[in-house]
């Protein structure tokens, strides 16, 4: 299965290209861009990232663990502290809050590591350093017979360079 790479200089052209390609029935697109771009996101329309859920889980784990830990500890070895009840919920809120943030953050970043880095680790032979500079790349996976079509669409979208990448 072949891949066609179109290199452009503007995110807006790229977004346009993506729309055209989709219109032309190309589904497997990979985009390289030096900056995040809403246009492209919308054009690709991949839906929200699963990281949202991870964050939520992290936060809930954090806060519930914090309360559990503090209350359990209070009764594990009950000692009167400053005439307060063994488990005093109010101060527990503070550590509850902190752990909520901490685990939320950790889960989020782990999510990025997994979805963003681990799952996308393969098949970047077409990558070229310019993509971290001022170039935008659009990689279209297609069958041999569709190559010309893809090239044509990309050119029309204003690619400065279009080439076929064997993969």
């Amino acid at each position, binding site marked *: 299965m072949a891949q066609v790479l179109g290199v452009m200089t503007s995110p807006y052209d790229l977004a346009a290209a993506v729309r055209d390609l989709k219109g032309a029935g190309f589904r497997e697109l990979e985009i390289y861009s030096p900056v995040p771009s809403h246009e492209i996101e919308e054009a690709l329309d991949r839906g929200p990232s699963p990281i949202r859920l991870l964050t939520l889980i992290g936060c809930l784990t954090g806060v519930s663990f914090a309360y559990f830990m503090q209350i359990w500890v209070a009764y594990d070895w009950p*000692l*009167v*502290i*400053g*005439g*307060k009840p063994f488990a005093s919920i109010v101060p527990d809120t503070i550590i509850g809050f902190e752990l909520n943030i901490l685990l939320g953050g950790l889960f989020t970043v782990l999510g990025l590591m997994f979805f963003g880095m681990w799952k996308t680790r393969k098949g970047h032979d077409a990558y070229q350093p310019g993509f971290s500079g001022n170039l935008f790349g659009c990689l279209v996976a297609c069958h041999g017979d569709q190559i010309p079509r893809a090239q044509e669409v990309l050119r029309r979208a204003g690619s400065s360079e279009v080439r076929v990448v064997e993969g």
Partner: protein
Amino acid sequence: MPEIDRREFLKIAGMTAGAAATVACREPVHKIIPYLNQPDEVTPGIATYYNSTCRECPGGCGIRVKTREGRPLKVDGNPDHPLSKGKLCVRGEFGHMRTYDTARFAGPMKRVVDASGARKLEKITWDEGMTLLVEALRKGSSKTVFLGGAETGTQDALIDQILAAIGSPHRLRFEPFGQEALRSADQIVFGTDAVPQFKIGASDVLIAFGTDFLETWLSPLANQLDFIESRKNGKGFAIFVGPRLGLSGSNADQWLAPNPGSEVLVALALASEVAKRKGGGPEALRGLLAKYTPASVAEKTGVSQATLEGVAARIAAASAPLALPPGVEVQGTNAARFAAAVQILNVVSGAVGKTLVFGPDHNLGKLARFAELRELVGKMRGGEVGVLLVHGSNPAYSAPQVGLSDALHSGNVFTVSFAFAPDETAELADLILPDNTPFESWGDGEPVRGVKTLQQPTVRPLFDTRPTADVLLDAARALGASVPAGSFRDLLVAAWGGRASFDAALGRGGEWKDVAATSVSLAGGVASLDFEPAPLAGNASDPVLVVYPSHHLYDGRLSRVQALHEIPDPVTKTMWGSYAELHPETAAVLDIEMGDVLQIKTEAGELKVAAYPHDTIRPGVIALQVGRGGLPRNPDAPLEPHSYWQRDVIGVNAYSLIPGKLDPQSGALAWLSTHASVSNTKGRAPVLRAQLTFDQQGRGFGMACTTGALAEAEAKHGEGHGESGAEEHHRFGEWSNPHRLHPLPLQGDAAHLPTRQYDPAADAHPDSPYRWGMSIDQDACTGCNACMAACITENNIPVVGPENIRIGREMHWIRIERYVEAADEREVDVRHTPMLCQHCGAAPCESVCPALATYHSKEGLNVMVENRCIGTRFCSNNCPYKARRFNHWSYDWYVPEPENWALNPDVMVRAKGVMEKCTFCVQRINGAKDLARKEDRHVRDGEIATACQQVCPSNAISFGNLRDEAAVVTEARNDVRAYRVLEHLYTRPAVSYLMNIRRVEEA
């Protein structure tokens, strides 16, 4: 530090875990050194107690020494003893520390002059020492003089016997506070030179003429016990006449400060006024008294006629008045006359036979007069003295006026010192034959007639020392003199009527019987006396020099005990060193500020010392305390961050400012005899003080009520008390609050607070049988610091040294806060508030500790687990009472051998970087609980005494179980005078205070 034969010590020291630091493996090897022969009465790990006698002053109180594995650890009063009654003073608490003195003589020494001409000491054996001594005595033969201190009992008699036997019965018993004046006065007034009993306890009005009866005068401990007895619940009234409010003065209710020297006239004026009010007084005195009416002396003394008459009226109205003869600080060249005047006051006020009793006299009759010492030194100069034997006396320090050192030199007197630790006189000695310390030796004494106390060793001699009595016996035998056979101990046993009765007496600590009072009558010739104010030398515009005895160091003999330097002076709250006290007015006139280095000059000499202005001293006076400025404690101490202070001389020797004037009648040294020229050198010296202000800012730390208010409140309390349970209670924590305002007006922000009683039902641990609490009676507390001393020895509290004190790092778990509300002719209202951990029910310190190192125990203790502490010090910040102490250094590193042998094994030695504080002596609580559990019962009330409570000579502290309705502490807690400090912060303290009682008429 001298070499110690540690092995020798350990043999009797028993179980000892010593870490051999040299071992370079990952953990030091710990050794167990068992007994060689285990004594029957000793169980390793269980303390053994021995009765003995305190030798830190001539008072001769009975003590009970706690020992563990052969080491004396703690000194307490002997409950069976008539003088100490189970209590002890701040000095006695440290008696054993002189045995553990780092710089003690390790054995006999002789003075050698090396090539460079420097005189230094050289170690010798006892045989050499004895031969030297015998040689000297043979040469000196009849020209031998024995110079000792106040001594009574068998050893005293024996020494006389020996001296007689070797044909040279010259002996001097020299004490700086020798009561010469009083003895002469009694001679003049009553025709006997005895030192009678002043029954302070029986008096209802007490007037002291500069008498430091709570510090050093006669038997201070007994005095304090009596004094407090006489002031129980609002009774009693005390008037202090003198230039400076000492500890005794601070506890009086009225302060007359006549022109220094003219106190004698005040005494006479009072006498004459009292006589007038009592219908003339004795015939013989009328003529005399007529000359000294209040009106006539008012102008000379600077005390208004009205005031004098007021005081006189009080004395006249009293049922058992008592006037105390002058203390040394007001002892001028008219000392004997002054004392006579006071005794006359006692006569006219009817104290004689009632509160002033002859018969059970103090055994001070044989003491030398200062004049005799001077005479002796004169003889030395004249070469009439061959050998000088010095024992238990240090005139080179405490009597610089006589110039002992050059006399010894010019008269080349062969001097033998029996001192067990270096002192100024030993420095001059040619031969040093160290005696055992009182804690290592046998002995007895009779400080007061009828009270014979025994002294027994509580530790094997730590060094190569010998009892002086035995040394003299051997010497005498070597000289062929006829002395009784056997060792001193044999003679002692014999003197006590043989083994059986000796052992019996030992059990009690001695034997005491009442001595019948003898009646005295007015001697003739009193009438013909004439009285003059003591003349003062020097420029009249200069401040008058007042030198006074030290409450902590006595005459300086305890100056080697570091802890006594570090306990704040009860009056000035200064530590470590001498300070020139003067009134702020005087300071302003002389342009002096706190901490300026002053140069004080009299004809006798001059000193440089830091100024310390404060309110409780008369204007126009500059006061210095004796006892300091002796030898540096430990000249070759290691230069570690805070131990180098040991190398320095601490303070100045105030004796050296006293000109050598004598009182012709009594031959006493005139302490108060000159003005001193004071110049501000503009230099600055740190003033080490525990308290920056004596003004409590109306914060209600030390509260007070007047006698009137107290009576009212007690009446009210009588009805209202008890049925509070019926009322609607507002609870906070375990303190229930019957809606009744405090029976007495509270001061500070607590003013609006209701009374609170402990309510077991509301306790966090209702199942716990105990709830420990303490109550402190401020009216009883004199601020004598005995509690601090006891706490230090009981709880291994380190001495931190002046360098740390300067920054403010004292470690005392209990401190006495002194607040001066009034100090003048109308009223003296000085409040002493012992401040310690309040063991709060809602302790601010607990909730902030991250490591849970401090928490509230089931028994209501605020527990500090030192080994869990990581030293964030938040607890100290958050403690409103500032009762917590932090180990800035590893103080235990700096406790040198053998001083660390006094550490109490029941209490851990805290490491650096941890917080510590009062534990309510939890080691004692646990001990009592162990016992109770073994006998399957609860701890009884009074079974536990905290160290501070046990020692308190005022019985101001009560401790016990608040759960116990009948407990003393519970009662005290519900007393009308009870209040809690800073209670409005809702810390719910377990320590409650009883208010001071102001003995004044409502204005």
